[in-house]
Every structure is written in C-alpha cells, then in structure tokens.
C-alpha cells in the first residue's frame, strides 16, 4: 500500500496543476475547471488523512469523509451558479476571454 506522504504529494501535485491553470489560462471556463481540480485535490488529502487515522475500534476517522461530502455538495452548487454567471456574462459581452472583460479593472 502507498504511504500517507505519497498520497499527499499526489494531492499537492493535482492542486498545483489546478493552480497553474488558474494562473495561466485566459478562458474563463477553463479557469473554472481548474478550480474544480483544486477542490478535488483538497478532497483527496482529506480522505487520505481519514484512512491513516484509525481509531481504537478499527474504523477510519469518518469526520473527514463527512467533510468531503459537504465540500462536494457546495462545489456542485457553486458550479451551477458559476456557469449561470458565465452564461449571463457571455450574453452581455459575447466573450469568455478574461482579458476582454476589464470594466472593473483598476
């Protein structure tokens, strides 16, 4: 079986990929997908911590898994609202490129 450190490094690498996507890409939908990658990287480290922290009764720490359940729920709601905002933005400006949307830029 893999060790806790290996799971955490893989999770950190996935988070870094998502972070690089947010920093480097200019298409707002790709930025949104990269945000999902970062959320899922956090979920992976939570589940790994849960599995490696086994209590006296031989069960993993299920608090972390309940937390992951909540994160998935909130992320699904966030995707629905975020995509609705993107559609409204596209209707107003006919673009999904963040450099074309600079009204609020200081």
């Amino acid at each position, binding site marked *: 079986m893999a*060790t806790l450190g290996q799971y955490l490094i893989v999770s*950190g*690498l996935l988070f*870094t990929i998502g972070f690089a996507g947010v920093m480097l890409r*200019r298409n707002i939908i790709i930025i949104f997908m990269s945000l*999902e990658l970062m959320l899922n990287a956090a979920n992976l480290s939570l589940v790994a911590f849960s599995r490696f922290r086994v209590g006296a009764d*031989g069960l993993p720490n*299920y608090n972390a898994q309940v937390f992951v359940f909540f994160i998935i*729920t909130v992320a699904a709601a966030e995707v629905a609202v975020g995509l609705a905002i993107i559609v409204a933005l596209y209707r107003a400006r006919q673009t999904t490129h963040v450099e074309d949307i600079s009204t609020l830029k200081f």
Partner: protein
Amino acid sequence: MPSLLFWTFAALMLVFGAAVVLNRNPVASALSLVLSFLGLAALFMSLDAYFIGIIQVLVYAGAVMVLFLFIIMLLDLRAEERRKMNYVAVAGGSAVALALFVQICMVVGQLRRADDRPPTLAPAAADDVRQVGLLLFGNYNLPFQIIAVLVLVATIGVIVLSKRELR
C-alpha cells in the same frame, strides 16, 4: 500489487489533469476532466472510502461535467485562436505554481507520519455508507440542514440569473 494500482490511477489523474490545463479546445478539456475525476474516484476506493468514490463519479463525472459540456456547447466555444502570449506573465505564473509545489513537498517532508502504512481496518469499515450516514444525520445534522438551504438558494439564484434580462 496495490501500489502498482495506486501509481496507475495517480498517473491517470495527473496526466489528464494536466491535459485540462494544456488543451486549447474547451470540449477536450472537459472530457479530460472527466477522466481525471475517474482516476481520483479510483484513488478514493483505494483508501477504502467507497461512498465518497461513488459520489465522486455520480456528482462530478456525471452531473457537473454534463453541465460543463452543456454550457460549452450552448456558447458554441471553438478552440481559441492563438493570441499574443505574454511570456513574462506565463513565466511568472509557472514560477509561482512551482514555488507552491516546492512548499507542499517541504511540508509533507517534515510530516512525522508521512511514511505510515495504512493501518488494518475492522470488518465494519466495509460498511462505510452506514458509518458516514450515522455521522451525517447524527452529529452533523445542523450543517446538513444548512447545506440543504444553500442548495435551495443556489437553485433560485440560477433561475434568477438566467432570466432574459437582469434588472
């Protein structure tokens, strides 16, 4: 050979995660994201979190990705034409991301229990839907109700946002 499976699915997840960022065509990015989430669900299974793994496939690889593909096709996004790249910004962004990864590696390296093997589980752990459900409807009942309100608010918000004209 569980370690081989771990590295297979971790590589699947990371390669397709990178493909999400690198692909020029949004549809290809979205389909890469599905495969990346499937690899992640397999990693959840390898951690004996069967419930979370199934939820990951149903909610993310199913519902959320259909929503993404629907919006991409609704907006009729083509592969973006090459714009003039700002190389300073690309180099800066990559450097920040790399610095973040180095930091994560340093933190994990200092973790005392990083070399732990997973402890053996009691047979009751195979019944993890029951365990998660007991916690969810017992200890975490109030947050569960609050999240129900949040989903309701999101539903109403989406309906308001997608009306023809916003006032």
